[in-house]
């Protein structure tokens, strides 16, 4: 028994380490597979790179899409739009890109990886605080206090850019204790109670449910961001990709997005 225990433990350890090392959200092998004989059929697997704030709404839309198109499979990669844009321009295999800012999408269009984006939703900011609001945050001005620990998105990420616009509108200077890689990371720091407040999208506060409480930002200082979506020129399954984009832009897509808290024009 002793003889196999050590190698077995080592094997388990390596397996556990490898499992932990894989970090992407994909649950299926990546890469668009070739669709069947009819070129316009919607039965392939597509990779959709989407802003982290779209996680709940798009996951729901993805499974609805798969139910309507038998054989089609949608694999999501959620993350900060700026990081995803970088991945795409560096050659990551993706079919659709949904960004939380027009600027990030413009960068991808400029590098020739996307064409003809369409705006499909808009989002505004809200302050998220741990349940019961232990620091008593009531307005954006409270975030400027030194005793209040604030988490914000990194300066390059869309939610960080829009949060800064809110602060500029309110005329306050907020120094965060941490700048997280995407909006969901900010949300998790808030729900863990490690910070007193975070500035996230209204959709994130809604999606977090009981984990956080929301403190509204008045409309006169709030800022919004527009979400564009586009198929990518490097896509290997343009039919399925376009079908998914059309689905997001359809009434079914609009209702799912509105339910999540996005504003759809």
């Amino acid at each position, binding site marked *: 028994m002793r003889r196999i225990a050590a190698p077995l433990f080592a094997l388990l350890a390596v397996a556990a380490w490898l499992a932990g090392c894989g970090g992407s959200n994909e649950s299926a092998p990546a890469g668009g597979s070739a669709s069947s004989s009819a070129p316009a059929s919607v039965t392939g697997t597509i990779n959709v790179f989407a802003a982290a704030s779209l996680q709940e709404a798009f996951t729901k839309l993805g499974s609805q899409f798969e139910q309507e198109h038998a054989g089609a499979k949608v694999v999501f990669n959620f993350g900060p739009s700026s990081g995803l844009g970088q991945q795409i321009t560096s050659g990551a295999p993706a079919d659709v890109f949904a960004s939380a800012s027009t600027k990030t999408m413009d960068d991808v269009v400029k590098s020739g990886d996307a064409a003809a984006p369409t705006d499909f939703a808009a989002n505004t900011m809200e302050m998220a605080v741990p349940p019961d609001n232990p620091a008593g945050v009531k307005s954006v001005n409270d975030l400027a206090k030194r005793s209040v620990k604030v988490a914000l998105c990194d300066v390059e990420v869309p939610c960080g850019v829009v949060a800064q616009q809110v602060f500029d509108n309110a005329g306050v200077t907020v120094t965060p204790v941490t700048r997280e890689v995407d909006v969901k990371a900010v949300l998790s720091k808030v729900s863990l109670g*490690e910070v007193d407040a975070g500035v996230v999208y209204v959709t994130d506060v809604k999606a977090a449910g009981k984990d956080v409480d929301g403190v509204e930002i008045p409309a006169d200082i709030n800022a919004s961001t527009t979400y564009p979506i586009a198929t990518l020129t490097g896509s290997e399954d343009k039919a399925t990709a376009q079908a998914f984009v059309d689905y997001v832009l359809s009434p079914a897509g609009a209702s799912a997005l509105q339910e999540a808290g996005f504003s759809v024009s």
Partner: protein
Amino acid sequence: MTTTRAAPTRRRSAAEDQQRAPWPLAAPAAVAVAFLVLPLMGLLVRAPWSNLGQVLAESAVLDALRLSLVCATSATALSLVFGVPLAWVLARARFPGRGLLRALVTLPLVLPPVVGGVALLLAFGRRGIVGQYLDAWFGFTLPFTTLGVVVAETFVAMPFLIVTVEGAFRSSDRGFEEAATTLGASRLTVFRRVTLPLIRPSLIAGAVLCWARALGEFGATITFAGNFPGRTQTMPIAVYLALERDPDAAIALSLVLLTVSVAVLVAMRDRWLNTGAAA
């Protein structure tokens, strides 16, 4: 220290020593070499050599470098102060559950670093099982502080030191220690002036390994200590974020870390790369 040889075997001739690798071994070996070396070559080839100095002199880069060096060194110091005694206890003391304890303290070796970060938050975070008392009694929290970075790095790096040093304690010659005791030295003196010097090579190797691991730590640091330039943004985090905004800076930072890694390997070549050497 000399090692005793087993019964002498037939001396191999010089011709036998120089073997050509048979192709079933050489081919996979060549693939392995290419796999390991090509990424490093890519880094060197694509580096922005012409404005490297300018990129590296940016204050954010210097901040990250300084912070990384300070935190890695502090983490190594903490690991030495607390890890060496633990290694001694694991190697020499006899008590029930010693095997289990050894498995537990080496767990961070195989734990995915982000999991380590989450665990640290749950223990030492503002609402953690210990951290909540730190906050309530002293108004002090570890997350988002430089000390928090040191704690995270110590958590992932200390087991490396413990494992290396414990092995050395176990295999060191007790005869010298017993001789010192019979000559009247107290237990502490024996430890300080006989045991430790005997394991000095392992101690140094363990400390360097610990330092290198702490320097490269990313997952636990960003999860537990967060990211703020100058305070908690270490080099690996800076590289990760720089990839989004300024790929040239990311490559330059990566080069710096690569240089440090090469320096570590060069310093440790006798120990790690020379398989015939004695401990």
